[in-house]
């Protein structure tokens, strides 16, 4: 993944806010990057841009050598479907679907058969320790369990890149540790992980930390 002179500004209450200012960076496959910085410093903007969800005002974002924002929206959706997994602070599970069905969504989008969808989703939920909660709705699960369902969902399409936005933001220290262990494990499998976080303990798990300040990036190795 590569950012090439990326800038992003947006208007907030009539004022132009610069979220990213001429940022360039490179993330190699298998890397584990923590992005830290004060609130409003553009961390989430950076993450969404990496996932092909937010186009830059100027500059280019490359994924596997392809300029993401020169693709059509549907082609970008295809790239996300095949290579990228998002983990959200608020989990973003679909409330009226069961744990199993939530995990099935990416498999459905990848047009797998019903049987295969169930088979794979069941396996993934077992992997995150929720083999006995398949038919529970999100509201019937604890927050830690909800985040694990979200992680199982991320893993459904076997993504090369996992983009996590404050994955432990809503969790108690014990559950946070479980989720971070799981991310470590995924990184050891060779997946690239980019994690936005406020939590120094979470950031310390990463191989390197990018600090964002007023739209500018500085990098430090852990």
């Amino acid at each position, binding site marked *: 993944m590569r950012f090439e002179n990326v800038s992003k500004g947006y208007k907030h209450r009539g004022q132009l806010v610069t979220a990213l200012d001429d940022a360039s960076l490179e993330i190699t496959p298998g890397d584990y990057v923590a992005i830290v910085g004060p609130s409003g410093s553009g961390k989430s903007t950076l993450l969404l841009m990496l996932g092909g969800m937010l186009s830059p005002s100027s500059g280019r974002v490359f994924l596997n050598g392809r300029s993401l924002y020169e693709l059509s*929206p549907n082609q970008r*959706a295809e790239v*996300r479907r095949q290579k990228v997994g998002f983990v959200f602070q*608020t989990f973003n599970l679909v409330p009226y679907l069961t744990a199993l069905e939530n995990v099935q969504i990416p498999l459905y989008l990848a047009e797998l058969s019903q049987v295969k969808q169930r088979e794979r989703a069941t396996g993934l939920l077992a992997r995150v320790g929720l083999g006995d909660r398949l038919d529970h709705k999100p509201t019937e699960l604890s927050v830690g369990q909800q985040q694990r369902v979200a992680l199982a969902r991320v893993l459904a399409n076997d993504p090369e890149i996992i983009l996590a936005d404050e994955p432990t933001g809503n969790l108690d220290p014990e559950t946070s540790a479980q989720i971070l262990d799981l991310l470590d494990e995924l990184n050891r499998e060779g997946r690239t992980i980019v994690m936005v976080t406020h939590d120094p303990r979470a950031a310390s798990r990463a191989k390197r930390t990018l600090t964002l300040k007023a739209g500018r990036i500085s990098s430090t190795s852990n």
Partner: protein
Amino acid sequence: MLGIAVVVSIKNITFYSEKAVALQLDALGANVLVLPKSVTLQDYYSADMQNDEFPEEYVLRLAMSDIQGLDNLSPKLSVPVKLSDRSFTLTGILPKSEFQAKAMWSGAGIFSRPAEGCGTVADVPGAFRPAAKETLVRQRVIEDLSDTEALIGADVAAILNVKEGEGLDVLGRKFSVTAVLPETGTVDDSRIFAHLHAVQELAGKGPVINAIEIVGCCKEISGGLVEKINKLLPDAKVVTVTQVVDTQVKTNGMMTQLSQIFLAIIVLVGGASIANYMYANVFERRREIGTLMALGAGSGLILRMFLLKALILGVAGGIAGYIVGTVLAVTLGPRLAGIVVVPMPMLLIWALGISVLIALIASYLPARRAARLDPCATLQEV
């Protein structure tokens, strides 16, 4: 759903009330008259006799024409007769069997024309049926009548003391009375009906008639039947029993207008409320939409998702509207219009079609908006 229900019930009741009115109208008899130019409708009904005549050939011209909605043509020639010092009217009529014979002979089967039950008499070939007496009064048509047979009105029978099967001398010819017609309270009661050609011969008038009574279909009458006959028979005058026809046409028109107004209301109000609901739904579910997009859903899928929802809403609304509307029509029909209303499955197809169409059209913009949502905005604001 409610709108669909109202229109289904109006349509259902209208259909059966039209049918009921058509039947009533049928019972009243002819509703179109072809008269000589100089005669007014009033003359015809008050005196039932006039000196003006036109050729009998006009009947054939009508019968052979391709004008739709002409059923039961009944040519008449009326002449005054005196029997036992009392004045009666001898009316010559042409039995239906002669039309058939003529038409077939001319190679044009007029009775094979679609008649759609408006003013038609069941076409049973052969001689008199028990119902024939009634038919002459109601339908103005008789199946069969020979040169020496006569039908007499109730007054004639009473005054002359003649019963069915007895003989009656009229203008020197002996007729056998095949039927005494039931009392109608009209000029028909003092009529003696005989074969048209017999009357022409006895009156020494040649092949002429002074009226053609027609039971026309109301729909066709309002659709320019009169003009068509006028064109075909420029030397004759065509009048409709306007009051009867007008009332029916007006009622039909009012009901049609009413359902059109309701249809417009459904389209506007129903469409607007569905669109409003869908916009609200898209707004409520924007986070879900954003999540789906983050998981790799394309805009096409999101669009299809919301249109599918609209389709389901439309189908449900259509079916529910049909059921409620039919129940309304069946229960209210007898009370409001005094008619029996039977459910019409055709209306289900209509209700489904309209409802699905409105739901889909009204939901298209909200669905497209959902498909074009900026996923990042939907994820960031929550």
